């Protein structure tokens, strides 16, 4: 597909003329053992169409039965977001034709969702933004289309298409924000911070593994611009299936820059869905929403209404685990961090990693240093999320332990990390296999020291003559012959013993 590249306005310039309003619809696949309306397994990665039955295939005659665990997870998410929990809630049918929805409708919720009117506070650069939550509702996922042939992976131009119904019917919670105004230049970061915080909450609740790369958390990002001071909001676009935190931020940034150019040229922003492209960070037009699809929602007659018992809901609320905001406050105290330092951790999406690394035995300072320093650099170089790096918190803890006991030094630690990231095993294994351990007073080191002394009689003379700092040249020579594996302090002591003498 060839399209003319969008004209873009410089981001800072956008803000001189326009105010953004953002909004997010987030889908979370729940981690229940079985699907929303049948007993099929939800395990990710099974062979196509092996986790299906008459119900999730929508075979004639089949009927749904709601998964109680999914209802409970949804209510817990609602409670964690401070929502009002409905005392009466119904499923509704959202009618439209597509091969990946087997029944010709998606069983969802419409005007009677389980949870409404909540909020989530997120922090960006020390400032708190309140994101109002409009609703949290429960629905079923669709199947997955695979369009074979053609360049774009989309249906147009494909030779044929396949559908995998393993995903069809997996419980999906949709969390919809109200429009979020007033974020200005921080709009992209607020969007990212919101998804990050939401993900942390869902993870803390144990409701989902929220793996964006596997699609168990998916975002639709709405963006609109209006001239500064305008009383009305602009027309919004909906960027679909933005599947990483970084992309959430980039998609808002891109849409702001693109829409500003359209508006600058006195054009009209089209109400449409847009696709986000990870490689270029740009969006392209999808389905037009100008002619709104009429989904003909009506209450699902095959399911009875849900009427969560007030006492049960109260108990679910009382039993919620420590939520991320409270946990951060506690960790700041325990680790002695400032709010800014904590914000860095969160923004880098490293809090969970650091917590796990500390749990695996590393000191909080070491854990932070590695994840925010060396590892963040490498993730950035590779263009991946920190969590996608091929190193586990336990391995990082092992690395810091090897450093602490002097098995390796900083330089060797970086080489060890190379090996771990290359899939050569854990740090200990890599140190062993690559022979990276710091040399003790081995024969090899003694030989290197003595060779250095023998090879530089003039330096030896200088040292003996009182210029002790000249010893550095000899240390350097030894380090060079041992290719950095020797411990500099040990080398220095050995040289002193032999040159300055006993």
């Amino acid at each position, binding site marked *: 597909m060839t399209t003319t590249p969008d004209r873009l306005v410089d981001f800072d310039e956008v803000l001189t003329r326009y105010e953004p309003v953002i909004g997010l619809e987030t889908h979370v696949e729940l981690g229940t053992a079985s699907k929303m309306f049948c007993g099929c397994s939800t395990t990710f990665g099974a062979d196509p169409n092996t986790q299906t039955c*008459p119900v999730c*295939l*929508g*075979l*004639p*005659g*089949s*009927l*749904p*039965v*709601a998964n109680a665990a999914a209802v409970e997870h949804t209510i817990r998410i609602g409670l964690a977001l401070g929502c009002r929990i409905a005392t009466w809630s119904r499923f509704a*049918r959202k*009618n439209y*034709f597509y*091969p990946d929805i*087997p*029944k*010709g*409708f998606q069983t969802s919720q419409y005007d009677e969702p389980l949870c409404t009117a909540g909020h989530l506070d997120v922090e960006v650069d020390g400032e708190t933004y309140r994101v109002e939550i409009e609703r949290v509702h429960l629905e079923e996922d669709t199947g997955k289309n695979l369009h074979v042939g053609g360049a774009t992976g989309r*249906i147009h131009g494909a030779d044929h*298409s396949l*559908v995998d119904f393993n995903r069809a019917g997996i419980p999906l919670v949709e969390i919809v924000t109200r429009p979020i105004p007033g974020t200005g230049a921080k709009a992209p970061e607020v969007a990212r911070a919101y998804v990050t915080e939401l993900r942390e909450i869902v993870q803390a609740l144990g409701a989902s593994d929220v793996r964006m790369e596997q699609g168990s958390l998916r975002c639709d990002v709405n963006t609109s611009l209006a001239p500064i001071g305008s009383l009305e909001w602009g027309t919004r676009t909906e960027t679909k299936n933005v599947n990483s935190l970084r992309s959430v931020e980039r998609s808002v940034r891109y849409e702001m820059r693109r829409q500003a150019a359209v508006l600058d040229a006195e054009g009209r922003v089209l109400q449409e869905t847009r696709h986000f492209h990870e490689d270029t960070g740009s969006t392209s037009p999808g389905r037009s929403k100008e002619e709104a699809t*009429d989904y*003909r*929602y*009506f209450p699902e*007659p*095959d*399911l*009875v209404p849900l009427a969560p018992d007030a006492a049960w809901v109260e108990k679910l609320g009382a039993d919620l685990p420590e939520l991320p905001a409270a946990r951060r406050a506690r960790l700041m105290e325990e680790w002695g961090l400032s709010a800014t330092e904590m914000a860095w951790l969160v923004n880098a999406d490293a809090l969970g990693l650091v917590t796990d690394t500390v749990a695996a035995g590393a000191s909080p300072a070491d854990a932070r240093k590695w994840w925010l320093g060396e590892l963040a650099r490498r993730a950035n170089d590779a263009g991946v999320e920190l969590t996608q790096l091929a190193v586990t918190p336990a391995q990082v803890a092992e690395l810091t332990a090897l450093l602490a006991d002097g098995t390796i030094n900083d330089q060797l630690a970086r080489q060890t990390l190379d090996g771990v990231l290359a899939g050569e095993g854990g740090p200990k294994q890599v140190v062993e296999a690559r022979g990276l351990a710091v040399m003790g007073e081995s024969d090899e080191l003694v030989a290197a020291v003595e060779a250095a002394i023998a090879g530089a009689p003039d330096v030896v003379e200088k040292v003996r003559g009182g210029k002790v700092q000249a010893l550095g040249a000899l240390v350097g020579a030894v380090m060079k012959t041992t290719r950095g594996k020797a411990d500099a302090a040990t080398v220095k002591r050995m040289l002193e013993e032999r040159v300055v003498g006993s």
Partner: protein
Amino acid sequence: MSSTELTDLDAAELGRRLAGGEVSSVEATRAYLDRIEAEDGAVGAYLHVDGETALQRAAAVDAARAAGEELGPLAGLPVALKDVFVTEGVPTTSGSKILEGWRPPYDATVARRLKDAGTVLLGKTNMDEFAMGSSTENSAYRVTRNPWDLARIPGGSSGGSSAAVAGGLAPWALGTDTGGSIRQPAAVTGLVGHKPTYGSVSRYGLIAFSSSLDQAGPMARTVLDAAVLHEAIGGHDPRDSTSIDAPSPPLAECARRGATGDLKGLRVGVVRELGGEGHTDGYEEGVLARMAEAVQLIEGMGAEVREVSCPSFDLALPAYYLIAPSEASSNLARFEGMRFGIRVADDGRHDLDEVMALTREQGFGPEVKRRIILGTYALSAGYYDAYYGQAQKVRTLITRDFTAAFADVDVLISPTTPSVAFPIGSRVDDPLAMYAADLCTLPASLAGLPATSVPCGLSEGLPVGLQIMAPALADDRCYSLAAAVEAALDSARGHRLLDELPTRAGATGGAA
């Protein structure tokens, strides 16, 4: 015993003979298969018959009995299922071309329960496409004829089942009733048909027409048979969320007790809006006459009969024709040629939307399309409140009328349908005339209440049905009163109504 004699027996009697070893299941099954072979060409009751499998199952039951195994009361009894029930490995079409060739991978709960009870499936019976119709003329496959007069309709949508049971091609059968599709065909073929309380018989594996109305139920030659078959399929099913988890009253026992004919203390309401004073338009005189006689009969047996007014019933027809098509438009969306049934125009020259549209265009018949269009419109943004929303309110009003009526009476009665079986083809061009056949049965459907049709005589040589409606979960009241009416009429007549069937009268040498 000849085939005809065996197939004349009601199911209870045949069951007794099977249990007593006088007849084998293979003999009974073969007798029915022989008659199907000989007569179904003219009647057109079945869409699918697999004699070989039926005989194998029958032989297995006989072998089990011979081995002294403990068998249930239904073991070895043949049965027919309306083609709306999903049956594992057995073609299931719901009367539609769009499902041609589909062999389901699973059994409907009721089909499974009958299988587990040891019944022998004779075949799948014809029906109006997706159960939409009152004459079975909307079947995509064949015309079914009324055994009382082959030029007339057998009712619908369960017309294959009614024709089979009345015509001696099955001892009993299952039908489904959305707006009257068990009761009306039972009425016009001289059978007993019962629509159970909504939620008391599982809908799992019943190809949905209108989910909030559909109920499976028995069609039989006697009230007792209907009650026994109902008991076999009823009860809670965890696979159907709308299934009621409550014990069902003993129905067969009520049918037996009811046949003693003592109705003292029973309060019976005659619904004015269903054929009563000022509401006789469209009702045939003969039907009203049989109805009046039934009222006298019931009074004569000691019941206290009074007229009851349910004003909202006048709105039942328009409400039904919004709710049922609305739900149908959604229920039938899955028939798009992607996973089962036929697929049209998948030739590489048509895109996805075209393949789906052409499949539906060629797969669905005109009445189904009419209702999909009607329902799609009624659910559309901007029209929902005026149509679907209003219809749901009418539904509430109808339920209130019933509640008020049942504060004063135990059961309500009316004609089952305003006319006797009409001639094939006479109403096909007039959907509204066709819809009027359901006038009396719709209120109980919309309120989810149990209702029975029991024969109450002939008009112009054709059967007339009496409808008995009861409060939710009081299906036993329907069976009690129906049994009393049946027993009194049989005894006055000296034989069963079905014995007056012209074909049967011919076969047995003519009625006296």
